[in-house]
């Protein structure tokens, strides 16, 4: 009987809360706080009257009801023996306990525990109280609490709450909360309901990716009703299919994310190697410098990782670009037209830069903080969530790529670079300062490497070996895409990243990488000029 009564009362409560939500501001501070009477009523109640007292509090629709009942359930509701006031115990350690006024939340200081008389609760009541509290949360006007409560309902629905839940579902709810509650009810129905309810429940559960929904369906398949089992099976199959799609989407996302890292690392190389024809084996170390710039910036601006990260974008570009200019002026300009020698000399520079970082900073990895707005993930559905930092890196790669494209296509510098690449002598006779163009191009390519380093610092360890890990991959991407072709680099990077991620689940990370490398080696045999070979006059330069 008690259960029925509480069900009825909850129904009432739902209506009342709805009303109160509309008229919420109406009862902030009246002369006589109704809460006082409600609490006194609860404290005075005999175990049999408890139900009614709780109902009264719930039905009051008081926004503080949640906290009162919480305190009550946690044995924190007490009565001051002297004044008869009902208080909340904040700290119940030692002889003197800290108490607060449940009505205002005001701290009333310490009081000897002997002065307090606990409002008792028994297990039967506590069990009911939990259901009541969960329902109260579902009615909460705070969308966060409401959502969390709906989430918690999954698979926890039992008989006493099913009726009020159905009632609640008749109301206007945020779509996510509604979705969750419908699932929760359907899971319950599938387990406990009659044949009709089970069939309906399966319809609702079809297409849900939640693991509990799948578990319930699996149980139904094993159940004794063949019709239900068959339709549950069908639902499971469709869910499996949807899961597969989601996994594919996830793989694609990881692939794009890895691919955009590759693009970032390789795009600078596509400029220096592809456009200028300079093999810069120190490219990886320029990336490393960019990453260390981010670290240094965060050391300069402690406590503001976000600002430091944003500032390191231009700073990383500048540091790497200056280093690039230094390399170009000191070594590469003397090795023009001797690509293999350039390769060796720049490799030597990469060794020196690595060792420099090891000696000056540390041979150990440095930790770079990820700012808050970049951590966490974007939840698409139960089976798919995208980590934000990788999303940012993908976006950043695309922006950098677009920027480079613009520079190469639309600016004077880009025009001059292309002219010098195609025919140096002719370009010079047209008044283009070829040496200056060389420097600028190399600085641009190096600067982009620095940008790659800034991005990489967010998703990988910043250490002296950072560049080494990317140099071979970067060359592979440029060669695979076709030297001298920025679009080729973009396509190649994203393709290789995706292929790598597709192979990884069944081959393992190392084997996948080996397979990709072997694949590229074989591909180069077939098409030595890459995916998009350069055609026309520039091709034979």
């Amino acid at each position: 009987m008690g259960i029925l009564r509480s069900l009825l009362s909850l129904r009432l409560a739902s209506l009342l809360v709805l009303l109160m939500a509309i008229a919420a501001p109406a009862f902030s501070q009246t002369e006589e706080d109704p809460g006082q009477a409600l609490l006194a009523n609860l404290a005075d109640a005999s175990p049999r009257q408890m139900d009614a007292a709780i109902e009264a509090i719930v039905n009051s629709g008081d926004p503080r009801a949640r906290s009162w009942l919480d305190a009550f359930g946690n044995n924190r509701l007490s009565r001051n023996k002297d004044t008869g006031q009902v208080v909340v115990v904040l700290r119940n350690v030692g002889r003197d306990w800290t108490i607060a006024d449940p009505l205002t939340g005001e701290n009333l200081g310490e009081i000897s525990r002997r002065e307090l008389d606990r409002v008792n609760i028994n297990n039967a009541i506590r069990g009911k109280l939990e259901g009541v509290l969960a329902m109260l949360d579902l009615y909460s006007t705070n969308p966060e609490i409401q959502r969390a409560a709906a989430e918690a309902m999954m698979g926890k629905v039992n008989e006493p709450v099913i009726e009020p839940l159905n009632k609640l579902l008749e109301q206007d709810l945020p779509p996510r909360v509604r979705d969750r509650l419908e699932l929760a009810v359907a899971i319950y129905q599938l387990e406990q309901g009659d044949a009709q309810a089970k069939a309906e429940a399966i319809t609702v559960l079809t297409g849900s990716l939640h693991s509990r929904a799948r578990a319930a369906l699996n149980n139904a398949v094993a159940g004794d009703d063949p019709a239900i089992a068959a339709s549950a099976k069908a639902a499971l199959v469709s869910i499996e299919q949807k899961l597969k799609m989601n996994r594919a989407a996830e793989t694609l996302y990881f692939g794009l994310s890895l691919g955009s890292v590759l693009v970032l690392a390789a795009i600078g190389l596509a400029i220096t190697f592809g456009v200028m024809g300079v093999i810069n084996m120190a490219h990886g170390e320029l990336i490393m410098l960019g990453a260390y710039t981010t670290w240094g910036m965060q050391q300069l601006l402690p406590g503001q990782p976000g600002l430091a990260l944003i500032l390191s974008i231009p700073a990383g570009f500048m540091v790497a670009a200056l280093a690039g200019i230094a390399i170009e002026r000191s070594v590469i300009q003397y090795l023009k037209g001797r690509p293999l020698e350039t390769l060796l000399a720049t490799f030597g520079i990469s060794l020196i830069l690595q060792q420099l970082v090891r000696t000056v900073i540390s041979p150990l990895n440095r930790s770079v903080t990820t700012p808050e707005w970049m951590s966490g993930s974007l939840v698409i559905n139960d089976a798919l969530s995208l980590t934000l930092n990788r999303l940012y890196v993908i976006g950043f790669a695309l922006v950098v790529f677009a920027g480079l494209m613009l520079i190469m296509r639309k600016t004077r510098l880009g025009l001059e670079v292309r002219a010098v690449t195609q025919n140096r002598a002719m370009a010079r006779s047209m008044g283009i300062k070829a040496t200056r163009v060389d420097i600028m191009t190399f600085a641009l390519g190096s600067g982009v490497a620095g940008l790659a380093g800034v991005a990489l610092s967010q998703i990988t360890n910043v250490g002296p070996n950072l560049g080494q890990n990317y140099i071979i991959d970067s060359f592979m991407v440029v060669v695979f895409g076709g030297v001298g072709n920025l679009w080729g680099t973009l396509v190649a990077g994203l393709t290789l990243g995706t292929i790598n991620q597709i192979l990884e689940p069944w081959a393992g990370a190392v084997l996948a990488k080996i397979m990709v490398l072997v694949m590229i080696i074989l591909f180069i045999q077939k098409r030595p000029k890459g995916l998009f070979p350069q055609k026309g006059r520039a091709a034979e330069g």
Partner: protein
Amino acid sequence: MTSSQNWLFRPFQERSTQIFLGVLITALIVVTFLHLFMPQDSALHVSAYTVTLLGKYLCYALLAVAVDLVWGYLGILSLGHGAFFALGGYAMGMYLMRQIGDRGTYGDPILPDFMVFLNWQELPWYWLGFDMAWFAFIMVLLAPGLLALVFGFLAFRSRVTGVYLSIITQALTFALMLAFFRNEMGFGGNNGLTDFRDILGFNLRSDATRLGLFIATGIALALGYIICRAIVTSKLGRVSVACRDAEARTRFLGYRVERVQLFVFVISAMLAGVAGALYVPQVGIINPSEFSPLFSIEIVVWVALGGRATLYGAVIGAILVNYAKTVFTGVMPDAWLFALGALFVLVTVFLPKGIAGLLQKRKKAENDDDPATAQEATA
């Protein structure tokens, strides 16, 4: 058959080869004498440690000669010769592993320790036969040779040259390094193969065996050098130089460029394999780090320092750089990479023809002056 005799004996008529062999054989005899007959406390005594160290240098020298053959005379900058070296080394290592027998920590008569550790029940098929020395020694040539054959066939047929070839050779050795790091490959993973006991029945830890290995390495270097000289002085060698300098023109003249390239590339890979095979028993370990791209590119710098397309320059370069490395890593380990990096830059910018280039310049200047005297001083 006079032409074939000419082909084989031409190297011995060259002054540079005579001097090189003379110096090498003298060095072998002197070291052997000093090691065996000088009393321990004499300043002139060469310890077993030094003998092994010198043996190691000679292995590197042979490796450098192999690289010089393809880079100097064929124009192919291989950044993956470490892979052939390591494959030869692994073939030898597998033989030495099988020779341990039941003396390993786990005492398994067939399985090497690391396989017992990984709970493997039987020997993988590719380990079969390595208990026989002749089989292992053939594999020392065959494993790198086959890899070079397949890789070279694919690459040269589609006319991959220059920087592209360099980069994919680097990718090749990188991929192999990743593969050999895997325990599942059955080559000891990270730790590689080590803890060897004896070779052909001789205890590897005895001084006599070490001296024997040193002398064997010296002879291998001499033979390798003669083979390379024979190739580069033959008609084939001239064609390969033509490929280096004007590939398209050579092709238009009717030569099958890719066949020349393939032949020389495979020979070079086999020489590198032999160097690796002699290296392993002397240092006592082979692990995947020999596949690292850094090592392969380091070999190239030995050759660059010594002087491209001279062969003896490669030997000088290999010995000099590795001696410097021994000294540096002993005295100030942090400085070694600075020195090596600077060496890369300085040699390519200021010394494009290497030490051999300097020697030849002097020779030209003082017409009659013998390059070998200077060579002796540096070696």
